[in-house]
């Protein structure tokens, strides 16, 4: 590992520059290429018959009428796929004791959630396929739904999958330090229970897949709206018994994903199976109604928590008990245990307290499968911890900011290992909080709050300190047997005209991956951005990589790009040195030229390129140009690069109606080296609003029969522009020493901290009334119920 970037590197590079994304222009011109935009010859379309029941035995299925319907090419049921698609099991070996039943692409005997795919109609158009779905005759025997997590985990509860014995997918306990003793001695104990409603991603581009099998050469090409093409290539090869080299996955433009499009879906696997059966291109785009019952859901938790403190506010101990419901199957290949595992791993982690006990129980239920979605576990862990801290502050008569100050890990105390075993390399918690309080004029807002209260206007200020895990190493997934890559690679090539083509294994969903990589490569090679072309998302054209998830794109993909660009630079300078009879060490790259130390232009990059590719005759003997370099990178020292931040929400609560008006939001975040502040800030803002969605608006409402009651965009409330605040974002940079670039990740921090800040602000507004709301989403109804007005 070479030395970290110094300030000498920065002025001539793009690192730290707010450059607009070159590849965004075409998106703004209506020239994006999403899966549904692709037209292939003989393309057919799939529509699914889905279970109308949360739990039911399939008694009979008659597709004869559907087969005769106009435009129908095929109707596929489970029996057509026997032996064609290996079922999958969503467990990983490093989650001890985890269990889950095998999942198949289509239901053969029993449906376990409303929306589970049963049969697929393949037709010349989606409309004709839907017409035929309506003609399928199906008889069900309804079985008792299992919607309630407690009922699922009660002793003697009927197991949803008999072979598993009970409904506990995974359990974990943590017991660190001396928790009981700490509670016994505490001056102050606060306890509270929280519930977080299941909600879902609602990507604007629905899940989209177009699978094409060419029987003549045995190749499967899947155009997929996905975050991880290499992982899916591996999975398709494995489960459809195809040679690895026969499978290609291509991700072009992806209309939003946030973790929704990184899991294996039975309807997608069915679509691939149909392509293999038919030998022609087959497309499935989930419509909005089916998205609500077939996209993965997230974040259904109930948590009981207690905190013990000394009267000076020092947190002495923390306990949490988390029950989370994940649907009938743990998802594949990442498992549905990670969310709850992160909750118990992360709660309280940014405070000094060493006495920590946690219990996690992950329960099966008859609702859509539930798993990782942006910020996985962090919103919950942060909301619970920060709510307890505010509650404790009130109990002790301390200002909430002051209580945090007294407990945050000091900025000079690193490296640090948390009670739950997480390793922090170096964070800036105290600095972030201080910067936040100054940025928002905390004291001024408190004064304003007091003044307005006397006029019957109730404003709330909510703080949230947090950490966010990024740049995961192989101990996250790979160690447990998942085909998930913690490393990533970048190939950088100089072309004869002096421009650079660069292929990376990390992918783009709009966060700016391509721009970030281009900035790093261009800066390293002394080129302007327009001279660098970045290729992503195609397993046939990029190095083997992990894709984009867990905020790894810049920290891992960016480092690979930096290393690859540096390696290419060395090769260029070696060749230039040979051509100029100069020492490569005395040369550098700037403005598209090979220059000497004084900055004088010696030879153009295009001339070097032409010499290498067309005029090998002019090169000295023994010189073999290699104007392409590939480097891979994986973090080795720390299992994750943790980042940190502090957020604040300022809002006004209408205590007569229960309505919340968000006035403003602030984020101070430390994601290490910032390559492009503009892109990072907008990731933060988007993440904050997504978190606000879960805090105030979003909820998949189920009745006791496991029926989704609000599965349209009219009834499921996503945040829209009218209700969202302006969001101020500031940075602190604590680079990681693990990599040369020093970047950590930034994609999820906004979502991790926002629900905590908003819930704290609501409860701060309610403080004069001595009531609290601890259920998210915090709807007007929940506020009025707390106030006893409804």
């Amino acid at each position, binding site marked *: 590992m070479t030395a970290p970037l110094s300030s000498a590197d920065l002025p001539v590079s793009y690192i730290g520059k707010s450059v607009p994304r070159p590849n965004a222009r075409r998106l703004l011109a209506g020239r994006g290429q999403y899966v549904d935009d692709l037209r292939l010859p003989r393309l057919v379309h799939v529509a699914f018959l889905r279970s109308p029941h949360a739990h039911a035995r399939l008694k009979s299925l008659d597709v004869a009428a559907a087969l005769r319907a106009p435009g129908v090419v095929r109707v596929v049921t489970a029996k057509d796929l026997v032996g064609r698609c290996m079922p999958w099991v969503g467990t990983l070996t490093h989650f001890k004791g985890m269990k889950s039943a095998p999942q198949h692409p289509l239901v053969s005997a029993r449906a376990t959630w409303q929306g589970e795919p049963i049969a697929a109609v393949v037709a010349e158009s989606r409309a004709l396929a839907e017409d035929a779905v309506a003609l399928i005759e199906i008889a069900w025997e309804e079985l008792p739904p299992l919607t309630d997590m407690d009922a699922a985990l009660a002793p003697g509860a009927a197991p949803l999958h008999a072979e598993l014995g009970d409904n506990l997918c995974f359990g974990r306990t943590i017991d660190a330090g001396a928790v009981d003793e700490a509670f016994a001695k505490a001056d102050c104990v606060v306890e509270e229970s929280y519930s977080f409603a299941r909600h879902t991603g609602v990507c604007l581009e629905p899940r989209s897949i177009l699978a094409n099998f060419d029987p003549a050469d045995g190749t499967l090409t899947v155009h997929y709206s996905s975050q991880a093409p290499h992982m899916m290539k591996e999975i398709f090869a494995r489960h459809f018994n195809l040679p690895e080299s026969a499978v290609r996955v291509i991700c072009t433009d992806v209309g939003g994903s946030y973790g929704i499009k990184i899991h294996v879906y039975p309807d997608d696997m069915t679509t691939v199976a149909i392509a293999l059966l038919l030998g022609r291109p087959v497309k499935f785009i989930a419509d*909005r109604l089916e998205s609500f019952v077939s996209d993965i859901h997230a974040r259904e938790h109930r948590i009981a928590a207690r905190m013990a403190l000394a009267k000076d506010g020092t947190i002495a101990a923390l306990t949490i008990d988390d029950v989370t419901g994940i649907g009938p199957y743990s998802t594949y290949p990442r498992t549905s245990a990670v969310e709850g595992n992160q909750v118990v791993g992360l709660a309280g982690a940014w405070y000094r307290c060493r006495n920590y006990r946690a219990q996690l129980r992950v329960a099966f239920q008859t609702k859509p499968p539930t798993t990782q979605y942006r910020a996985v576990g962090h919103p919950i862990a942060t909301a619970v911890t920060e709510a307890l801290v505010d509650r404790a502050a009130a109990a002790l008569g301390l200002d909430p900011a002051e209580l945090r100050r007294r407990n945050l890990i000091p900025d000079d105390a690193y490296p640090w290992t948390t009670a739950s075993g997480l390793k922090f390399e170096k964070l800036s918690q105290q600095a972030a909080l201080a910067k936040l309080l100054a940025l928002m004029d905390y004291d001024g807002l408190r004064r304003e709050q007091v003044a307005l209260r006397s006029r019957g206007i109730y404003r709330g200020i909510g703080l949230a300190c947090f950490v966010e895990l990024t740049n995961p190493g192989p101990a996250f997934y790979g160690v447990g047997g998942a085909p998930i890559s913690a490393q990533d690679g970048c190939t950088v090539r100089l072309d004869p005209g002096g421009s650079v083509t660069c292929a990376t294994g990390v992918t783009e969903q709009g966060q700016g991956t391509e721009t970030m990589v281009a900035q790093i490569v261009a800066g390293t090679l002394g080129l302007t951005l327009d001279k660098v072309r970045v290729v992503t998302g195609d397993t046939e054209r990029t190095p083997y990589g992990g894709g984009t998830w867990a905020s790894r794109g810049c920290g891992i993909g960016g480092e690979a790009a930096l290393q690859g660009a540096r390696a290419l630079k060395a090769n260029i300078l070696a060749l230039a040195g040979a051509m100029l009879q100069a020492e490569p060490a005395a040369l550098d790259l700037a403005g598209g030229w090979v220059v000497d130390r004084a900055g004088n232009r010696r030879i153009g990059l295009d001339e070097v390129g032409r010499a290498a590719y067309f005029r090998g005759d002019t090169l000295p003997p023994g010189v073999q140009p290699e104007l392409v370099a590939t480097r891979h990178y994986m973090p080795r020292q720390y299992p994750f690069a943790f980042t940190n931040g502090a957020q604040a929400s300022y809002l006004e609560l209408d205590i007569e109606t229960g309505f919340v008006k968000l006035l403003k939001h602030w984020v101070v975040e430390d994601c290490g080296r910032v390559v492009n502040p503009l892109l990072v800030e907008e990731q933060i803002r988007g993440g904050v609003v997504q978190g606000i969605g879960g805090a105030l608006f979003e909820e998949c409402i189920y009745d006791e029969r496991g029926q989704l009651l609000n599965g349209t965009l009219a009834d499921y*409330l996503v945040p829209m522009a009218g209700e969202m605040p302006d969001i101020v974002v500031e940075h602190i940079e604590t680079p990681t020493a693990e990599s040369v670039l020093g970047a950590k990740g930034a994609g999820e921090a906004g979502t991790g901290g926002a629900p905590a800040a908003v819930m704290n602000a609501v409860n701060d507004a309610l403080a004069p009334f001595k009531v609290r709301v601890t259920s998210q989403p915090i709807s007007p109804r929940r506020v*009025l119920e707390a106030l006893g007005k409804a």
Partner: protein
Amino acid sequence: MKAPPFRYARPRTLDAALKLLADEGDGARLLAGGQSLVPALNMRLLEPALLIDINGLSELSGIAEIAGGICVGALTRHAALGASAIVARRAPLLTAAVPFIAHEAIRNRGTFGGSLAQADPAAELPACVVALDAQLEIAGPRGRRRVAARDFFKGVYETALAHDEILVAAEIPAQRGATLFLELARRQGDYAIAGLAGWAAVQQDRIAEARLVFFGTDIRAVEAKAASVALATSLDAAVAALDSDLTPVADLNASAAMKRHLAGALLRRACAAALTRAA
């Protein structure tokens, strides 16, 4: 979510439309703005055999001043209603309500008559026409008839329109007091959780007369008669009188008790605003 197949007709006259409606019977649906009908088709909640596109019927268009008020054609787009100087002058309650209807793209297609015929209990315009004592003109195979707005809305998506009738226009007397319009919705443009449409005549710092119509609370827009009478006594009495006026129904956003509570809050705020504006 592709609509099921249907036949399509675009009659050029009201009589032609009525004939198609009568001939097809239950299998026909009128297509005006389509902002409620087409979602239902896309979700396959409805599968009509024939869609009768009435967007070309000039008999249903236009906003005109008439003696004592205005006449608003059923095909008037929400956007046109909201932009109309005539409406702003003679029935400003409607002008105040329009910005709350969904969003601009919806308002450019959705129609005044369509909203009334749809009779969503949480919609703004049904409450407004009740508050304004509108007379609704209806055409059918048996000729024309008029129904008072207060008698038109029966229940959830249920009106006095027979299946073979078409709403032609609303005759709206000039508004008799200052506009009262308040709506509580989770997000801009959403259907109301609770809303109040009406008017108040303020004299000497008191509300002398008021028409109060709540929407989003009951199965239809409902006039709070007891509350408007009780305003003469006190605002508290009026809020209490809502118990006899309203029969709130729970939905995903609010229990019946919460809707009742919100109605009271809206009444207080609307009256306070009316008195402040008049002062």
